[in-house]
């Protein structure tokens, strides 16, 4: 069911916070790669907020690198991986809306290595649900929620404005 007590901050405010942090991190060797769909929506906003004109932007859809094919099946997404530049020796900043178990981040990192050997990979997210199941943590999160507060959060675009959708899942 949809959580009626959705008290999460406005996503745009969080993206602005993220942009401020990214500005300190970005150099001439940096590229931003979003994890669809949330990461794609965030990157669309960041493009207008970040001043760097030489920054490369890409997308990484982790569907073929996930570890839960036989549990959850394949989720066919509208967007597929699109990394049209060389990531070798680059500082790659992965962008996602929500960090939960760390499994999507693990899959994204695996996939990145099929495109080259980055010098460094960082993970920036809007919300950290603090429920990692792997030794992976975001380098930056604009907002943190307690592990049990919401069962499901994702960033969505409705009528050209971004909102967090929260859902309570009865397991």
């Amino acid at each position, binding site marked *: 069911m949809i959580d009626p007590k959705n008290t999460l901050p406005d996503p745009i405010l969080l993206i602005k916070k993220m942009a401020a942090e990214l500005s300190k991190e970005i150099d001439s060797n940096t590229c931003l790669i979003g994890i669809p769909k949330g990461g794609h929506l965030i990157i669309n906003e960041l493009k207008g907020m970040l001043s760097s004109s030489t920054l490369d932007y890409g997308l990484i859809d982790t569907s073929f690198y996930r570890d839960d*094919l036989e549990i959850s*099946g*394949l989720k066919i997404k509208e967007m597929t991986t699109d990394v049209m530049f060389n990531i070798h020796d680059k500082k790659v900043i992965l962008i996602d809306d929500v960090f939960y178990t760390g499994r999507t981040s693990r899959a994204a990192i695996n996939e990145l290595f*099929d495109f080259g050997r980055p010098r460094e990979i960082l993970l920036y997210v809007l919300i950290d649900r603090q429920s990692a199941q792997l030794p992976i943590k975001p380098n930056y999160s604009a907002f943190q929620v307690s592990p049990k507060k919401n069962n499901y959060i994702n960033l969505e675009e409705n009528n050209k404005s971004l909102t967090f959708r929260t859902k309570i899942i009865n397991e």
Partner: protein
Amino acid sequence: MSKIQYSNDGNIKHLLTIEGLQEELIYKIFDLAESFLNVGNREIKNVPLLRGKTICNLFFENSTRTRTTFEIAAKRLSADVINLDIDSSSQSKGESIFDTVDNLISMGADIFVVRHPEPGMPELLAKHVGGNAHIINAGDGNHAHPTQGLLDTFTIKKYKNRFDNLSVAIIGDIKHSRVARSEIHALTTLGVPDIRLIGPTDLMPTDMSKINLKIFESMDDGLKNVDVIMMLRIQKERMIGAIIPEEGEYSEKYGLRKKHLLLAKKDAIVMHPGPMNRGIEIDSDVADGQQSVILSQVTFGIAIRMAVMSMLIGKKI
């Protein structure tokens, strides 16, 4: 027949025929194949989706293209592939196909890709293996060749975008062609309003009366304003029983030549499932011409087979 393709929870478990496959599922296969096409363009073309899975190619008939594309598809998904050499296997010592399959399941096989001269053999195998493995029909007698039907319609989608305004002509020995049968079922499910079959009357199907098909004996009549020309291989083995007229006569009447393309729409595409008999059912200048998409079919075939294998193993989509 199609019910056995699905598990109780509605997921596709085996791919035996296109007949009865839902349109929605075909489009899901297309969407997935599209994603895999992008993977094929990368420097590293493998993804780890089926790592640890074992795929067995059981081909009881000769095949180069189909077996190779299944093998490449499986390897791109990081699966282990076993090509059973039937001539030197226990089959040649008299072991039944069911025993062979049981043994391979005990060795950890997950998917069997089966080509067999007997129509219905993949279905029998699907019933036999139950939930212990998945069966993909890679051609059974003159019954079905579902991945070919899927890759052919995927090719049409790539070049024509939609199906609901198309005229498609299939030319050759339709009656004995599992490829044609699968293509007809796929085109019908996808809503192609005008499906034309061109060939000698004796080689027209007699078991598809429920499907709205237009039959033509002459290329000149059947090819007028078509969007897609699908050639079939002339099956020389059929000539032995004089089912097909003498090769030269057949070629004269049903071989695709450049002059025929003038009858079709200007942007019509030419397809052929291979292997081609150049100079017989298709002239070289057509096979290699600008309207030919024959080699694209081969490339798309890998993506379609990757999609099918992933969907069978995945719990749901």
